[in-house]
C-alpha cells in the first residue's frame, strides 16, 4: 500500500515534465483521449454533418430560402420539398439549413468576439496583476452583476436588426466568463519557471504573453468556447421568440422555431425540423464539450 501510493505521483510528475518539453505530445495525447470518447466523437460528427448541410444543403434542392409560391403553402414533406413548405410557400429544407447557417454564424461571430475581448482583458489583468488587475477585476465584477438579458435587449432596441448587431449584443456581457478563465490560467502560469526563464532571457511582455502564456491557455479556452456556442445559439433563438433580431426573410433556427411554434396544432412538421436541429446542435456541442474537457483537462476526467 505504501509503495503503491507513491508510484503514481512519480509517474505523473515525469509525464508532466515531458509534456512541458514537447508540446506536441500534449495535443497528441488530447486527440487520443478525445478520439476514444465515443460521445465526443459523435458530437463532433453531428456538428460536422450539420455544418456541411448548413453550407451546402441548399444545393441538394432546386429551391432557395426566399422564393415564395403562394399556391404551395403549408405543405407536408414531398419529393420536391423534403421538409415541406411554410406559410408563404417557401421551401423549408432550404430555409432550415439556411437558418442553421445563420444561427451558427451568429454564434461563431459572438464567440469569436468573446474570445478576442476575453483573452485580451483576462490576459492583461492576470499578467500584470497588482493594481491593474484589481481595477480590471472590479470592472468584471460590475459587468457580472448586470443582468445580461437586459443589456442585450436594450442594445438590440438601439442597434439596427441584423447578424452583426445580434453578435455584438450577445458578446457585450458574453466575454466576461472567458476573461475570468484566461486570467485564472495566466495567474497560475506566470509564476512558473518557463516564464521566469523566458523573462531572464530578455523576452518582451508581448512575446512572453503570445508565445508562452497564450498557448497554454488554449485548452480551457477551447472548452469554454464549445459551451458558449450552444448558449449563443440558444440566446439568439430566445431573442427571435420575443421578436427581436434579424431582417426577414433572413431566418435563423430561432426564427423558424418561433414561426413553426405558431403552426404547431396544424402543421407540426414546421416546428419539428428546426427544433430538432437546434437540439442536435446543442447536443453535438455539449457532447463535444464534455469530450474536450476530458481530453484537454485530464484532471477533470472522471
Amino acid at each position: 500500500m505504501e509503495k503503491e501510493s507513491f508510484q503514481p505521483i512519480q509517474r505523473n510528475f515525469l509525464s508532466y515534465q515531458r509534456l512541458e518539453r514537447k508540446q506536441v505530445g500534449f495535443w497528441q495525447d488530447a486527440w487520443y483521449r478525445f478520439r476514444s470518447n465515443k460521445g465526443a466523437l459523435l458530437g463532433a460528427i453531428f456538428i460536422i454533418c450539420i455544418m456541411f448541410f448548413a453550407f451546402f444543403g441548399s444545393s441538394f434542392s432546386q429551391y432557395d430560402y426566399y422564393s415564395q409560391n403562394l399556391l404551395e403553402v403549408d405543405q407536408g414533406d414531398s419529393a420536391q420539398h423534403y421538409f415541406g413548405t411554410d406559410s408563404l410557400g417557401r421551401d423549408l429544407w432550404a430555409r432550415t439549413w439556411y437558418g442553421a447557417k445563420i444561427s451558427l454564424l451568429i454564434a461563431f461571430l459572438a464567440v469569436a468576439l468573446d474570445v478576442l475581448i476575453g483573452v485580451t482583458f483576462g490576459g492583461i489583468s492576470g499578467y500584470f496583476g497588482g493594481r491593474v488587475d484589481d481595477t480590471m477585476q472590479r470592472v468584471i465584477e460590475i459587468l457580472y452583476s448586470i443582468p445580461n438579458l437586459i443589456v442585450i435587449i436594450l442594445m438590440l432596441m438601439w442597434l439596427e436588426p441584423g447578424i452583426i448587431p445580434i453578435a455584438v449584443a450577445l458578446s457585450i456581457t458574453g466575454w466576461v466568463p472567458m476573461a475570468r478563465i484566461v486570467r485564472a490560467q495566466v495567474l497560475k502560469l506566470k509564476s512558473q519557471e518557463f516564464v521566469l526563464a523566458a523573462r531572464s532571457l530578455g523576452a518582451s511582455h508581448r512575446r512572453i504573453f503570445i508565445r508562452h502564456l497564450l498557448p497554454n491557455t488554449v485548452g480551457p479556452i477551447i472548452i469554454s468556447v464549445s459551451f458558449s456556442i450552444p448558449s449563443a445559439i440558444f440566446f439568439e433563438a430566445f431573442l427571435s421568440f420575443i421578436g427581436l433580431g434579424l431582417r426577414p426573410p433572413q431566418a435563423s433556427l430561432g426564427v423558424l422555431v418561433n414561426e413553426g411554434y405558431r403552426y404547431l396544432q396544424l402543421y407540426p412538421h414546421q416546428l419539428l425540423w428546426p427544433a430538432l436541429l437546434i437540439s442536435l446542435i446543442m447536443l453535438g456541442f455539449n457532447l463535444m464539450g464534455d469530450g474536450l474537457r476530458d481530453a484537454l483537462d485530464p484532471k477533470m476526467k472522471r
Partner: protein
Amino acid sequence: MNKKRLLSVLAFVLICALLLASCGFEGNAIKPAGGDNRTFVLAESAEPPNLDVSKSTDEVSSRILNNTMEGLLRQDRNGRPQPAIAAQLPQVSKDKRTYTFTLRNARWSDGKPVRAQDFVFSWLRTLNAKTKSEYAFILFPIQNAEEYNAGKVSASQVGVKALDDSHLQVKLKFPTPYFMELCSFTTFMPQREDIVNQYGSEYALEANRLIFNGPFTLSNWEHEASFTLKKNSFYWDQRKVRLDRVEGKIIKDVASTVNLYSANRLDFTEINPEFAAIFEGKSDRTVIKEMASWYIEMNQTKAFFKNLNIRKSINYGIDKRSLTKRVLKNDSVPAGGLMPTHMKGDEKHKFRELSPDTVLYDPAKAKQLYAAGLKELGLKRQPDRLEIVGDDADSSKKQMEYIKEQLRKNLGLQVEVTAIPFKQRLQRGKRQQFDLLISGWNADYNDPMTFSDLFLSGGSYNRGKWSNPTYDQLVRKSMTNPNDQERLADLMKAEKILIQDAAIVPLYYRSRLGIKKPFVKGIYWISTGSSYVLKETYLDWKK
C-alpha cells in the same frame, strides 16, 4: 460514454421527436368557460394602463369603458348613433353649430343621477393641459376647446354648458357632420367630479376607485392577470342586459390563448392570422371589421420616389389580392383607395358604394412604368440599399417579406426589410428615414375626413412628404363646408387625386380575426372595430 448508453440517449431523442410529430389535435366537447349561460369569459392581449375616461387611449381600456360606461349616444350594431344617456338624438341648430341634448333619468352605479354637469366636468378635465390627456384633440371640434387646451382661454369659454341638470348644450367651432359619431367615443363619456377629487392621483387605477353608468360595473381588476365585470343594477336599460358576469383574462401569447380556447376555458378571443387555418370553415371564426386602411408610404424627399412612374410601378407591382387572401388570411379587403369599405358616405350609402375603388395589379404594366421611371431619372439601375420599414409583429414581418418578394419578382427591385418595434417605426417615419414605409390608420370616427386630412402638405402623418395643391384645397375646404353633399363630392375627388398621383400604395382595408364559441349570441363591434358591445350579449348553450 459507452456505445449502449449512447444508443439509448439517441433512442430517447427520437421517441420525443416522434411524439411531437405524430400527435394531431382532438377537440373537446364545447361548453361555456364559465360553466353556465350567465358568465362570459374572454381574453385580452394586454393590461389596460388605466380606465380614466380622460386619459385612456388603448383598445383594451376602450373595451372596458364601452361596456361599463355610457356616453350621450351609443352605436347600434349598424354603427348608427342611438340615444343612450341622452333621451333622444340632439336638437341641432340651423347653422349646424349648436347641439342641445336632453338627458334621460339615468343613474351612476352608486345610485346618484347622471347630470349634464358630469359631461361638462369630464370634457373640461380632458382638455385641461394638466391632465396630460393624449386624446384631448378629439374634442377640438368644440368651440375654444383647442385654445383652452393650449392655455389661451379659460375653461368657461369652452363651448360646452349645462343648461340645467338634464340639458347639455354644445357649441362647435365649425359644422362637424360627424359630431354625433364622436358623442359615442370614450373620451366623450361623463365623469364624476366628487369621485375624481376623492381619489386624486389614484383615480381609475383600481377597480374600486371608479364609478360607472354603463351596462356593467368593473368589480375586480387583478393587474396583468384578469378583470371582472358585473351587471350594473342601476343601469337605465338593465332589462336588456342578459349576462351576469364577464371575465376578462389578460394573456399575451396568442398560441396560449388558442390553447385556452380549445380547452374550453375561453368563450371568445381575438387571434392572429397564423392561427386562422385552425378555425378555417368552422363556426368559431368571426371577422371583426375595422375602419382601418393600410398602405405603403414612399419617401418623396428622395429623387427616386419623387418620380411618378416609379411610384406607380410599385402600386402595379404588388398583388394585393394574394396578400389578403393568402398571406393575411383575415378577410381584409384588398384596397384600391384610402377609405375603408364601410366608411359612411351620405345618409343612405357607404363612401365606397358612391365611389368604387379599383385594385391595381399588373406586372407587365408595372415593369413598363418602372423602366420608364428609370429612364426619366437617367438611371441604369435602382439606388443601392432601399429599405422597407415596418413593425416587428409576426404578421407585419410576413407582409413585408411578401412585398419584398413581389417587388423583386415583378419589378426586379431589391429592397431590404427592416422590422422594428412600433415606437422606432414611428420615429423613422417622422424623420423620413425610410424608402418604403408600411403605415396604417385606424379611424377615430365614421367620416372620410379622419383619413383625408392625413395627406395634407406638411401634415405630420404625411411621412412620404407627398404634396398636391388641388388635394390640399379640396380637403381644407371640406373641413368647414356646411354643405354635406358638396363636401362629400370634394372628398371623393381628393381621394381620386391621391391615387392617380400615387401618393401612397393602398394595400388593404383591415379586418381582424376572432374566434367565438357558437353559443355566443348578440355580440357586436362598434363601427371602428375597436370595441365589442356586450350589452345585449347572451350565451345560448344547452347540454
